């Protein structure tokens, strides 16, 4: 039985101020409850004021995913009581969302997008001791309350947990290119996932992290298949994904649709979305990742795969790549070093290129060292780690690292003294002995030396 997956994806938009007030959205480092006002705290008498740039961001998102943009749209009140809700209703869009009927392609599968709408984020709940199931009380931080979220709802067209993850990566990348969200912030994307195989639809609420989404869905897929095999009925319910055990647990049975008693928010008049406005936004849209990757592969004659890696790593990464090429027209060399080594070092440090110490000029300096054979590739691989760590000039680093190591002659000499038998056999022309000695030297130099160079030195020693 094939599984069907649909996602509700909440993306935090990076506008400067919140959706309905002028409080800053950049409150992660701030003291709890400092970035608040009567509007986002829901004090009696306040009135919400729509942040128009959030509407613009949502239109961009809708256009990027081939949606229809509504000419008129409304905000509604979704009412439910929960401690993270300052008003016990959330201002969201119900009847007519800003964007509808779009699609995203993952390989050959078209995933239809039902709608994308704007809504306000609730406050952050801090579980004081332990998790949702063990805590005795919770603390609430309203700094996040009222931040703008785009909720994207897909049709149940996703065919596997892996595909769900690919979809999220693609959406994340597009939002990054549009410059409307911050991919470096944790919890910039939160997901509710619906999955059904044989029986009723099961919802897994509030999963953070793409890997967790895949894991939660895989766990659920296996659980549901197991249930079917045992002829057990899969009930309609809401489950919670535990990030530590990587398992889903039942939260509540869902016998009927939740009733949120939607009404139009009477404080916010109709949003008029003028066709000219949409056209203006369309013309200001940047090149999106799919197109960029295709263009880069052709323009720089690099592998499509490599172009994809560069583009989907992030807009900043691709921008870095193209800036490098403007200074040194060696696309293959640059892409090879960026993908295989620079990215690895950045990932090791959990850094993005844009907030690392690496600059275009110094990276070019590094490529040139390799290109003109000042350093070996092997040494380059070592050097790049130091370079990403410090951001210092690669030329300077070469000197520094070389002085820390003994000259190669000296190392080889010591090895010969320690292994006289092997050297004798090498003199007799035994290949195994040569391999043995090279191995010893490589180990001693931390693989920084070039085997060719070692052979040259050994040969020169024969002549002595």
């Amino acid at each position, binding site marked *: 039985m094939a599984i069907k997956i649909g996602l509700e994806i909440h993306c935090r938009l990076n506008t400067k101020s919140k959706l309905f007030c002028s409080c800053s959205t950049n409150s992660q480092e701030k003291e709890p409850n400092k970035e608040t006002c009567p509007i986002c705290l829901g*004090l*009696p*008498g306040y*009135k919400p*004021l729509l942040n128009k740039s959030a509407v613009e961001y949502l239109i961009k998102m809708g256009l990027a995913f081939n949606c229809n943009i509504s000419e008129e749209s409304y905000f509604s009140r979704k009412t439910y009581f929960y*401690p993270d809700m300052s008003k*016990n209703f959330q201002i969201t869009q119900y009847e007519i969302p800003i964007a509808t009927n779009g699609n995203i392609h993952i390989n050959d599968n078209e995933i239809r997008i039902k709608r994308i709408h704007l809504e306000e984020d609730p406050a952050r709940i801090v579980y004081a001791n332990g998790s949702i199931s063990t805590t005795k009380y919770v603390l609430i931080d309203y700094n996040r309350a009222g931040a703008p979220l785009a909720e994207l709802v897909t049709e149940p067209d996703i065919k596997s947990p892996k595909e769900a993850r690919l979809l999220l990566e693609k959406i994340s990348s597009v939002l990054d290119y549009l410059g409307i969200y911050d991919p470096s912030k944790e919890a910039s994307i939160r997901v509710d996932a619906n999955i059904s195989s044989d029986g009723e639809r099961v919802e897994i609420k509030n999963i953070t992290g793409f890997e967790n989404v895949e894991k939660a869905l895989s766990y659920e897929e296996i659980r549901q298949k197991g249930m079917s095999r045992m002829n057990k009925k899969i009930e309609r319910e809401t489950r919670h994904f535990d990030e530590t055990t990587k398992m889903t647990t039942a939260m509540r049975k869902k016998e009927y649709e939740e009733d949120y*008693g939607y009404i139009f928010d*009477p*404080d916010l008049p109709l949003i008029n979305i003028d066709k000219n406005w949409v056209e203006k936004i369309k013309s200001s849209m940047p090149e999106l990742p799919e197109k960029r990757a295709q263009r880069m592969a052709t323009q720089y004659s690099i592998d499509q795969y490599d172009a994809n890696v560069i583009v989907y790593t992030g807009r900043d990464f691709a921008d870095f790549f193209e800036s490098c090429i403007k200074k040194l027209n060696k696309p293959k060399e640059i892409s090879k070093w960026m993908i295989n080594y620079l990215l690895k070092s950045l990932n090791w440090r959990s850094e993005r290129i844009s907030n690392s110490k690496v600059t275009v000029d110094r990276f070019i300096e590094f490529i040139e060292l390799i290109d003109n054979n000042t350093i070996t590739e092997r040494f380059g691989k070592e050097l790049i780690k130091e370079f990403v760590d410090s951001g210092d000039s690669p030329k300077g680093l070469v000197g520094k690292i070389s002085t820390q190591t003994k000259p190669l002659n000296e190392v080889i000499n010591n090895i010969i003294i320690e292994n006289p038998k092997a050297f004798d056999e090498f003199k007799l022309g035994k290949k195994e002995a040569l391999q043995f000695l090279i191995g010893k030297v490589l180990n001693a130099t931390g693989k920084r030396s070039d085997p060719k160079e070692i052979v040259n030195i050994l040969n020169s020693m024969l002549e002595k």
Partner: protein
Amino acid sequence: MQLITKNLSAADFVSNSINGSIDISEFYGALNEKLAIIQKKYAPFITIIDNPELPKKHGALYGLPISIKDCICTANIKTTAGSKILENYIPPFDATSVKRVKENGGVIIGKTAQDEFGFGTFSTNCAYEIPRNPHDPNRSCGGSSGGAGCISAAADFPHIAIAESTGGSITAPAAFTGTVGLTPTYGRVSRYGLIDYSNSMDKIGVIAKNVYDTALGLTYISGHDANDTTSSNTKSENFEDYAKNSTVKGMHIGVPKEYFDNIDNRITKAVMDNVHKLENDGAIISEVSLKLTQYALPSYYLIAMSEASTNLAKYSGLRYGMQNYVDGNFSEYFSNIRENGFGREAKRRIILGTYARAAGFRDAYYMKALKVRRLIIDEFKERFKHLDALIAPSMPIIAPRFDEIKKLTPLENYNMDKLTIGPNMSGIPTISIPIGTIESMPIGMQIIGDHYNESKIIKIAAVAERNLNGN
């Protein structure tokens, strides 16, 4: 001091305060005692401000005593909206209307009594003392702005009341207390700082002793406000100018027959006498029909209760207002607060409103009511193509006694609003003026205009007022 200010109009009081012939600090020194006596007799206030903040610079309301309905936020002054759930609530900000009163030199003297969150027609659904009618303390002041009507009638000093109406909460108390009540066009006065009842229909307006003072009050609280998206860009006017030397010559006035069904005959007669006088003054009178009137009441209550039930969700004893020892889980805690903090009528409206917007009922009730409202607005707009104003009784009865009110079923109670609901849910302006008495209790007549046509209804009201004063 008493003799000097007693019969002064608000405007004369202001000019005397500015030229120094009235010393406002002396005036306010004497006012405290006066307010205490009124409060003891009629209870118009929830909060009296003992040492009101006097203005530092001159303005169009310089030194004028102004009361504020308790659902309008006042910075650092307790604001309860008549509810126990906000018994200790002190807002951190002034409502725009309050800010404008202060900027123009007005002096806030107190917060007036009301039905809890505006839920009522008699100011009897109140967590605090019920205001009593200065014409007969055994009778209601009307609601929900009962305190505003009460102090306007009882004050023997110049005064303007800032009141609020959702479905008739200015007209009812004005009619019952023999004062003038002006409910402006929806959007004319900023709602920023108004504690919401039904946001799509709530309007801040004015109650005072005469048409001129009432119009003056509107002039200085109206105008666009960036803090309220629904506030209108329409230019503010000097409304009080329309109350001076006005004429009704050539104005077309309609008398809607549906507004005279099941009305006290004596009220009908008084209204028609006044209509005839206006005809003698040159107005062109015609009988008209507003067939959709009968649908106004149910659709109004569906919309108002749906919106109110979401507005009241935020009162959960967590961030402000009534609090309790935290006991049990979140649901148990907030349920307990709401059980103890809300009155019967608030609970009734939360339950009915939640039902009307629930899945499965929403289309039949809430959505349909919105459509009916649209049709009712269209019907008014159609009439105003040919008419400058409509005239009708304000209330179907004179102010009832408290023992009579106790006998009313909720439905009979809601039915008291049948004459005010239509204009209020359509967002069109109305002014209610006193036109005589029955059994020494005041009768009110309302003049209804098209959106933003306050000028016309003020003109007609001023002429009718002059006719009654015999000049």
